[in-house]
């Protein structure tokens, strides 16, 4: 469980957001949406404990990990190495090798992210989506309870966008919480349990139907958005006009 209370972030005299409250319960998928510059990445960094907020506090029971889109691992690494690096911190400095339990743990994490076949492929030979999943597998191998992902679908084609979001959704079913900063409102509505809209320094959070309304979206993005329902699956489709 992760909870940010009364959070504020300022850069110099520029106030990014204030009085932000966000609770992340186990097994929930929260899509963090909002215009560019609204502070989504800053909020994720604060929740991950990587940035000190100007005000407020983060209460965390369990571990969280931030995965940023710019995090390109060195090209010679494999998804297995990536996870092994994370696990290495649990060993004494002179224990260089990975114990058998570590191998099993990494294999299980790679399996959950459908990466078993690519476990020993260099990152340079993987697609952007597979690299994203490698980061997620590495986070799972170290028993991360909350995944904070900044733009998980950036640089991915539509197939990999859907794939990565299915992977994240499947993880929430095993109790892992996911907070993903996203730009695609339709994907947010389709996959997230809750949508957190950060705009004009304020955050509102609720179900996709409560947050993705023409009025709130118009206020946040300054454009008109028409909303439709998917005829078969019923999720919201957001079309900017």
């Amino acid at each position, binding site marked *: 469980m992760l909870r940010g209370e009364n959070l504020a972030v300022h850069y110099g005299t520029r106030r990014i957001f204030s009085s932000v409250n966000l609770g992340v319960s186990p097994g929930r998928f929260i899509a963090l949406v909002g215009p560019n510059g609204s502070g989504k990445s800053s909020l994720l960094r604060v929740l991950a404990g990587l940035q000190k907020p100007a005000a407020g506090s983060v209460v965390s029971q369990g571990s969280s990990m931030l995965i940023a889109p710019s995090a390109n691992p060195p090209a010679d690494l494999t998804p297995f190495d990536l996870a092994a690096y*994370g696990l290495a911190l649990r060993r004494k400095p002179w224990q260089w090798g990975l114990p058998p339990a570590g191998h099993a743990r990494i294999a299980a994490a790679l399996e959950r992210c459908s990466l078993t076949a690519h476990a020993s492929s260099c990152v340079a030979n993987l697609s952007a989506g597979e690299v994203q999943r490698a980061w997620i597998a590495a986070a799972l191998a170290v028993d991360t309870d909350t995944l904070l992902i900044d733009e998980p679908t950036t640089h991915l084609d539509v197939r990999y966008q859907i794939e990565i979001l299915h992977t994240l959704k499947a993880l929430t079913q095993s109790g892992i919480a996911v907070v993903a900063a996203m730009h695609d409102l339709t994907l947010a509505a389709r996959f997230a349990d809750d949508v957190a809209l950060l705009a004009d320094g304020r955050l509102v959070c609720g179900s996709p139907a409560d947050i993705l309304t023409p009025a709130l979206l118009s206020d946040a993005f300054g454009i008109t958005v028409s909303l439709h329902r998917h005829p078969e699956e019923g999720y919201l489709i957001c079309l900017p006009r």
Partner: protein
Amino acid sequence: MASTSSQSAVVSRTRLARLALLALLLPLVGVAALFVGSSALAPDAVFWSLLHPHAAGVTHTIVWELRLPRVLIALGVGAGLAIAGALLQALFRNPLVDPYITGVAAGAALAAAIGFTLQVAFALVPALAFCGGLACAALVAVIGGNETPAGNLRLVLAGVAISALCSALVTLLLLHGGQANGMPILAWLAGGINGRGWIDLRWTAGYLGLGIASAFLQVHAVNLLRLGSVPAAGFGLPVARARFGVLVTASLITAACVAVSGIVGFVGLMVPHVVRRFVSGDARWLLAGSALAGGSVIVIADVLARSLMPPTEIPLGVLLALVGVPFFLSLTRRPVEL
């Protein structure tokens, strides 16, 4: 799972085989270097001297008092500078840095030159060099700051600027010291281990050993720093403390090397690059491979330095710059990986 394990095993075996090659090369080069020098000694006489450490005679003196400590210092300096380079490249996530570009060596050289000018005991010179190197490294790190391309550029620029400032101050010291005090410092600055003996080795070995041991105890942190500070922190690494630890270690190693051999450039840049391609970029393999390859490179360079233009010895720093500059320029023509 089985296939993953078997593929990992194949990769590990390949790395191990290549590391073993480097491990084999080092003693071969080290022993061969004992047979080469300005005095032509018969190989059997050298062998005999090596097998009889308590004997007397000219050959024995040349082998035991001149060549052996010199080879051992070359091994230590090469291993140390290559490890320091590998550490700094991982720390700054910048493949173009080495102890010289980050200002560590220049700071160490300035502090050591001050020590020589003030005629402090040689035992204290590496300690002085360490303080100077660390101060410059910290300054460069603060200016360079973050891991963005702009930060990396600032880092290199700051390193070059600080190095230039230190070199200018060393020149002032040389001028101030006059001919008598200045010439030995100048010869030392040119880089080389000419005239170094057991006493120099003894005083340097402690600092170098401590630094190299510390480097190997930080391999997990170095590997995580390779990923960037955000993922490293996500995995639970106390990033600021780990970065400082790596910087201190690299400075300590560089200071020990600078104190004994002056400015020997490019080893810290070239060797980690080659080892990264030949063995692995994983810090466990990279540091071990860099130590072995760096040692061999300096021993070979030292042999060439003393045998290419006899009786003149080419300063080691000069010789390595002749090879290193084209290498450095070639790096700018192809993508380099950390």
